[in-house]
């Protein structure tokens, strides 16, 4: 397992940078440029590299989709949010004309995690194969239903012609897929969600999104600590602040940066990457959340440091 690339990192609903948001960034960049020597392209690149990510970049707005680079020829992904469309375009460009196999692991069947499938162009191409794995009994039904009239113009069978196949994964039982040892675990979310633990070549990756943590249940905490145990990277739903997650947004099925840090620290994980960003957060808000979470990790650290990052569309993390 070589690493991951994020194609969609937004929770609940895709969002886009607005004209007003872009204008604000340009204004702040130009203010920061006052008095700077920007005569050459190298000067400009250096200046841009020194800006906060929220000014010089954007976290993006596609809903959940993460690619796992196994080092093998098959493609492996988690979830089919709107980011799946851009991944599909990239995969087509990368290996045009050659048959491709895709393995996609589903956390759950809510709309923001399945909406990319009808726009996944590689699944339209004869010779390609798409295996969609999940622990929900309703997996295939949910994917077919979103393409039934009047929700979509072309139905599942017409568009995919048998190239897409659903595979049930028994929770808690390790499965071997594309060179990965894959284990799923039930998580607390409306309609259930499942976390994934991927192991290969001595590396461990955990994908745990759309998961609420009832803090009063020590057995629940222990289950997750064991699931995250010694992970090289934990991709974690940190949608809300802790105060929101256990008050006004209790039972909404999501978690917080604080619980992410605590679980990773208890499990001895090496890196936490926060994802499923709240759609109302702009880039500055996610930058601030990242800075606060890094500070939280620093002041609560008792063992080895936990590296903390915030996912953005296009982020690559090596394992």
């Amino acid at each position: 397992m070589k690493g991951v690339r994020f194609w969609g990192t937004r929770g609940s609903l895709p969002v886009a940078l607005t004209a007003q948001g872009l204008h604000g960034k340009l204004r702040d960049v130009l203010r920061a440029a006052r008095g700077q020597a920007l005569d050459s392209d190298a000067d400009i690149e250096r200046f841009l590299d020194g800006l906060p990510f929220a000014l010089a970049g954007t976290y993006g707005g596609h809903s959940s989709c993460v690619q796992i680079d196994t080092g093998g020829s098959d493609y492996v992904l988690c979830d089919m949010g709107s980011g799946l469309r851009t991944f599909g375009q990239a995969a087509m460009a990368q290996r045009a004309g050659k048959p491709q196999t895709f393995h996609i692991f589903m956390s759950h069947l809510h709309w923001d995690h399945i909406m990319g499938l009808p726009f996944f162009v590689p699944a339209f191409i004869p010779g390609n194969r798409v295996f969609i794995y999940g622990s929900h009994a309703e997996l295939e039904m949910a994917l077919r239903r979103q393409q039934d009239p009047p929700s979509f113009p072309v139905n599942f069978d017409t568009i995919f012609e048998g190239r897409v196949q659903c595979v049930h994964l028994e929770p808690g039982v390790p499965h071997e897929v594309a060179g990965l040892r894959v284990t799923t675990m039930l998580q607390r979310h409306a309609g259930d969600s499942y976390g994934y633990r991927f192991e290969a070549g001595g590396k461990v990756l955990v994908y745990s999104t759309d998961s609420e943590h009832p803090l009063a249940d020590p057995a629940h905490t222990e289950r997750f600590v064991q699931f995250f145990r010694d992970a090289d990277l934990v991709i974690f739903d940190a949608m809300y602040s802790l105060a929101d997650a256990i008050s006004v947004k209790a039972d909404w099925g999501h978690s917080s940066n604080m619980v992410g840090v605590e679980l990773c620290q208890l499990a001895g994980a090496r890196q936490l990457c926060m994802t499923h960003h709240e759609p109302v957060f702009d880039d500055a808000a996610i930058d601030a959340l990242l800075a606060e979470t890094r500070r939280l990790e620093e002041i609560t650290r008792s063992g080895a440091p936990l590296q903390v990052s915030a996912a953005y569309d296009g982020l690559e993390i090596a394992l």
Partner: protein
Amino acid sequence: MQIATHQYADTTVVAPAGRIDHLSAAAFESALTPLLAEAAARKGALVLDFSGVDYISSVGLRVLMIAARQMRAAQARLSVAALQSVVAEIFSISRFDKVLVVCPALEAALAQSSDAALAAWRARQA
């Protein structure tokens, strides 16, 4: 976990010490429950003096959230006072500083509670 309690007129001051984490939060909650019930029953005030608390985890913060909800429902008052700097940062990052009444010092919390509570505390300090 060590928890000291004092009564100043209509206000109960509860002073836990040490870490409130996944190992100690249940003991903290058990100790706090009867004190909250008593303050709620008389629509009084309860101040948590956190000057001796050097760490609080999400499990400990959950106890405070439940306490605040219970006191609000009973039209009683709850505040947290004298946070150490690390705990103050945890309150800020978790946004608990937005949902709880946080006072910089015990004296300020008692002043906010009632004149009688502040006077009783000052008399004890003299």
